[in-house]
């Protein structure tokens, strides 16, 4: 570590113990106004994130999964205030990111970085890689000579060559571009990186390369990750804890083994059962619960539990009362009035209620 590393700390983490959360998200809300008419009056709001509370601990990977439109990307962006949250707090150490001034926010972003999904859209096509990776350092006042040296080191660290710095983004494949995006996010030695679908644009053979790279740099740079993805297999592989989102709310959050082995929320269970497994024998022995309908629009979310119109075991209470995210087991929270017990399958519950669900079996 050189002397300059000291100057690139925001100081927000001073006095934060190792077992305390590095990031505390409380009641975070992001609404996008819907405007109509000549005067562009607001006629409604898309409730992209409605009241999300999550903790991110040091050196952990928190996976955030959900289907398109569930608000997971908006959540990630509002943590860094790339979109301005409507209300709620994001405590980074001792400091509330949502209250930081423009100048202070810039300092905080040394510690909070982001890697985007689309490696084609997130790199400036007119800049050589050297400048793309070096830009954060220039902005934050790292001397030029040292910045250049560090760009070379970073490129080598992510599996490229230092000479690649002279090339432009279009000369690289998707996987290599994602490596460049990762190198850029590492430039200021951050503490937290929000990874928004970092591998979903990549072919499977390349996907594993990038996942392994992320694993390595997490240890080396002592990073905490928020890993946003829709691929449940990838999330299980990379995360320590996993949060499942549905229509702007957290349905369930737990350490990954509890979540995947004992999902308590009916949505989590049906989501997991919908994922095809690349193993024909397991596929033949599985029965899959087919959820009816589509995810409703976040502009008009259903009343009560937002999952109730698609939930095969919903009861009257679910239509009127909004479930809170409550402790179900130690370290396992679920927002459901009638969570599934350990070992209880959704199918059993459906039968108990004397209902029917569409089930797909291969035999």
């Amino acid at each position: 570590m050189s002397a300059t590393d000291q100057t690139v700390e925001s100081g927000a983490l001073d006095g934060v113990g190792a077992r305390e959360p590095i990031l505390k998200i409380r009641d975070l809300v992001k609404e996008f106004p819907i405007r109509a008419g000549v005067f562009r009056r607001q006629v409604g709001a898309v409730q992209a994130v409605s009241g999300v509370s999550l903790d991110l601990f040091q050196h952990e990977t928190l996976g955030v999964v959900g289907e398109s439109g569930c608000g997971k990307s908006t959540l990630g962006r509002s943590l860094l205030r790339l979109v301005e949250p409507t209300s709620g707090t994001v405590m980074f150490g001792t400091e509330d990111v949502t209250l930081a001034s423009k100048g202070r926010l810039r300092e905080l972003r040394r510690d909070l970085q982001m890697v985007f999904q689309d490696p084609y859209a997130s790199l400036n096509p007119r800049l050589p890689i050297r400048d793309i990776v070096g830009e954060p350092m220039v902005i934050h006042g790292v001397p030029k000579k040292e910045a250049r040296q560090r760009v070379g080191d970073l490129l080598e660290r992510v599996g490229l060559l230092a000479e690649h710095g002279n090339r432009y983004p279009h000369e690289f494949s998707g996987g290599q571009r994602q490596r460049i995006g990762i190198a850029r996010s590492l430039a200021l030695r951050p503490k937290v990186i929000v990874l928004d679908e970092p591998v979903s644009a990549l072919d499977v053979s390349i996907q594993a390369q990038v996942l392994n790279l992320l694993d390595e740099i997490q240890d080396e740079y002592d990073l905490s990750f928020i890993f946003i993805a829709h691929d449940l297999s990838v999330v299980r592989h990379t995360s320590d804890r996993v949060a499942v989102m549905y229509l702007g709310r957290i349905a369930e959050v737990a350490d990954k083994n509890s979540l995947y082995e004992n999902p308590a929320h009916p949505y989590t269970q049906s989501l997991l059962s919908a994922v095809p497994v690349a193993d024909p024998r397991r596929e033949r022995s599985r029965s899959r619960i087919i959820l009816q309908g589509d995810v409703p629009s976040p502009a008009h979310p259903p009343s009560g539990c937002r999952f109730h119109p698609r939930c095969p075991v919903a009861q009257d209470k679910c239509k009127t009362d909004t479930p809170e995210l409550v402790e179900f087991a130690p370290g396992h929270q679920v927002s459901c009035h009638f969570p599934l017990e350990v070992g209880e399958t959704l199918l059993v519950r459906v039968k108990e209620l004397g209902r029917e669900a569409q089930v797909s079996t291969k035999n």
Partner: protein
Amino acid sequence: MTQPLLTVENLNVGFATKSGVVQAATDINFEIFPGEVLAVVGESGSGKSVTALALMRLHPDNTIVTGNVNFDGHDLLNMSDRDMRAIRGSDVAMIFQDPMTAMNPVFSVGNQIVETIRVHDSSVSKQEAWTKAIDLLKLVGVPEPKQRASQYPHEYSGGMRQRAMIAMAIANDPKLLIADEPTTALDVTVQAQVMEVLHEVQAETGSAMMLITHDLGLVAGSADRVQVMYASRLMETGSIDQIFYESQNPYTRALLESIPDIDGLKEELSPIPGNPPSLLNPLAGCAFRPRCKFAKDVCAIEVPPRIPVGVNHTSRCVLVHELPAPAGASAGDAS
């Protein structure tokens, strides 16, 4: 033994570009039998969609297609455009990845199905065709099909549009359905719905299906036989169990090892090193050689031929007899 419905022999598809001919599909040979599901898997640029488009003669003008394609007694590559149009959409139908671009935004969904029916059989009245369109929408699980038939594609959600496209594809009872990444644009819960519809439809009509996808999970749950493509060639062809548990091809094995497992059965991921090959400057010998952990000098000499390695199981690898026993045979017993 039953006669194959579709026989493809020595199919080559190339694109004439400024920098030379890009060979997108090379030396493709395969059959599809009535009623079966053949999955074609591969990464982007491996040639799977190009192969399907060439079969349907839907490729762009700068394409050079050679070879033989026989569908149910018809020579697809050499028939007139008029005859081809009669087959396309009736005996062979296609389902595309993105229903928003595959449907006409200014006609109602019902009208588009009516058109599909009446183009191939003008004796059907508009009224009859409309009734049939409603029945088809009902069959694929579109709720309130009567009202939905007069709506436009933009009024449908992604999953519903894909169902409507399936309805259109099966309108004339095709013998072969070509589904090109039919669920890639959809969420998993909706993907499960659409795949279920496809299976039901297939069971009902008895049509064969060529399922093009990059998702090995989808393949494991749907296919009877699989062919794996890499760098424009068929690397391995076999039954679903042969490919997943007894693969005799290093690329297939590497692909299976590189995907994470939802049940957490893989501690470590083994990525395939390097980058996908450029089709503009194909490598001498085996295209997978630079990324293959088994590669030897012999791999550089010539493109490996398709070597029979089992019953209806072939692999393009000169080292097939030296490869270690496939690991998948036991790992798959996890259930």
